[in-house]
């Protein structure tokens, strides 16, 4: 249970705390203003990102561009000069292309028919 004396000495300590002058040091104000400046997001002043820069960011920047370039060069090389192993592998996978002459010798027959009328 608090006595009257408890109230008095506590209130005195509270009063001492409240009476302390508080001056904001210049360097604290400077730090707070520097924070305000750095935290400020300028709605109009920020440079707008170009479409290229946006796409560049989406695909992952330079590391991804390097990978894409390597893949492109490899694809071009396989197209120009496919390795033998690749030909065998594709033949097994999708089969060997075969050309079939559906008309055979009949072409000459039709040609003759048209000439003879």
């Amino acid at each position, binding site marked *: 249970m*608090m*006595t009257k*004396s*408890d*109230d008095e*000495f*506590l*209130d*005195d*300590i*509270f009063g*001492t*705390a*409240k009476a*302390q002058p*508080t*001056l*904001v*040091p210049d360097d*604290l*104000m400077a*730090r*707070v*203003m520097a*924070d*305000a*400046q750095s*935290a*400020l*997001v*300028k*709605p*109009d*002043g920020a440079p707008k990102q170009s479409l290229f820069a946006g796409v560049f960011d989406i695909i992952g920047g330079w590391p991804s561009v390097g990978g894409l370039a390597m893949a492109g060069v490899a694809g071009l090389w396989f197209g120009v000069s496919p390795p033998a192993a690749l030909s065998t592998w594709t033949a097994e996978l999708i089969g060997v292309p075969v050309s079939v002459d559906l008309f055979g010798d009949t072409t000459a027959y039709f040609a003759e028919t048209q000439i003879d009328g």
Partner: protein
Amino acid sequence: MSTSTGSWADAPDGAILLAYANGDVEAARVLSGRLLPRVLAQATRMLSDQAEAEDVAQEAMMRLWKIAPDWRQDEAQVSTWLYRVVANLCTDRLRKRRGVSLDQITEPADPTASAAGQIQDNARLSALSAALTELPERQAQAVSLRHLEGLSNPDIADIMNISVRSVESLTARGKRALADILRKHKSALGYDDD
């Protein structure tokens, strides 16, 4: 947009904060001039440590700058929000101090010292801050807002998001607990024992 300090004189804090969020750095200067002294005073009274109080004040203001773009004027007062942030940051700091003996802080002041009064005041403030570390955090916040900041119970209820009845209970229990803790050091703090 650049605005002179004078034109902000009657503007509410929330309006100035929105101006800052829209890119007006001068608005931040006005708001700092208006709010930082109170923020620093609250932190100093709770922590009784100038360096720590400055850190807390800077952190509280930084949080204000960051929330500025999302600030909704109709929902809260900037001052209420700041009281809450500073109280929370201070109780975080007080929690980390737990375990420091009050005896280490309340050394009797040397009566022959030229600034004996100030030394005794400092001892009392340090003892108060140390005693706050021994209170449950909500009690420490309620007591400091009521008895150090001098706020009304409804204002404290708003800041702490609790009912006025809970504020009354927290401040009463907190003050009683503070008295129990500090009573043992009354003589060291320059008060006559009963």
